[in-house]
């Protein structure tokens, strides 16, 4: 892209005499290379952040979402039993037998 710009500048003739040498000066060239490198680094950073977010998200989904759901259900069941116990005013209802543990 920079070579086509400078070619156009030279093809136009002496009218572009100011911009041509400026765009060929070392500072501008270095600036352009730095911008390209920054773009590459930003792309890699975005990709690795995306990968990390995917791994973290799926791991959280498999490991912790069922746990949260089950703890919530357990809490609701306890509250329901407490409510029923206070409503009936008698002993709390018998607990169902525990699940099989293999």
């Amino acid at each position, binding site marked *: 892209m920079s070579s086509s710009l400078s070619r156009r500048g030279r093809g136009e003739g002496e009218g572009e005499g100011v911009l041509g040498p400026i765009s060929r000066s070392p500072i501008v060239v270095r600036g352009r290379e730095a911008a390209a490198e920054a773009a590459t680094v930003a792309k890699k950073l975005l990709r690795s952040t995306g990968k990390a977010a995917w791994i973290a998200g*799926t*791991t959280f989904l*498999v*490991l912790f979402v069922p746990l949260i759901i*089950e*703890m919530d259900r357990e809490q609701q*069941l306890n509250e329901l039993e407490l409510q029923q116990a206070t409503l009936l005013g008698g002993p709390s209802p018998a*607990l169902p037998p525990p*699940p099989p*543990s293999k």
Partner: protein
Amino acid sequence: MGEAGKGEKRVDYMNLPCPLPFEEIQREALMSLKPELFEGLRFDFTKGLNHKFSLSHSIFMGSTEVPSQSKDTIKIPTAHYEFGANFLDPKLMLVGRVLTDGRLNARVKCDLTDNLTLKINAQLTNEPHFSQGMFNFDYKGSDYRTQFQIGNNAFYGANYIQSVTPHLSLGSEVFWLGHQRKSGIGFAARYNKDKMVATGQIASTGIVALSYVQKVTEQGSLASDFMYNHMTGDVTSSFGYDYIFRQCRLRGKIDSNGVVAAFLEERLNMGVNFILSAEIDHLKKDYKFGFGMTLGE
């Protein structure tokens, strides 16, 4: 009684408890960290005909992994039906299973006397040279256990475990493989308190295995496990949790190989259990999910 009131009892070294059998030394960690993960559909039905005798029918449809030399995992879809019969007596237990892919499993456990137990384990397959059988003779003493094993392929093994304090038991095992003229010796230790269990095992085959299980609340416990294989240079460590609620049991674990797994058993009704299994391998990008139901007591 006065000494117990002070909060410290004198240890009675003549009356130590009987230790767990040698192969069950890591039982808590194995139960929490190694559930039976599967991929596909699993359906089990157990019907009791008697209070001692029961039949079971089981269907599995899904992929099983075939070990391959290359990095990719090869999955082959398989489906099989398994018929089983169980006979349970206080002194005698017989379990048999037959599968439609030609395998037969049989297990016998017989209490010959109060302290001596005979266990037989056999697996027969269609493929030649893949069948195995093992005889175990277990003797249980007041604070020790010893076991002698004879297997096919001229395998002989013996192990011994002894309680040294009310919380600590130490054991060792030796084995000899006849066909390959290999022998090995291993040592194990288990420290057991109210809420925690720590075990360590080291064997001359170059394996070091440590595990630690801690009960954090009355419903859940955390477990961790470390294994080092000197021959292959593999090191694996895993952390997991095991929560037992009233209606379900949930186990989850994360591994140093980048594997995340979870296993849920939920009780929908009396005798009806719903099972979900998930395993994600981030490094190999291998995803396995399974579901199933278990009917019957």
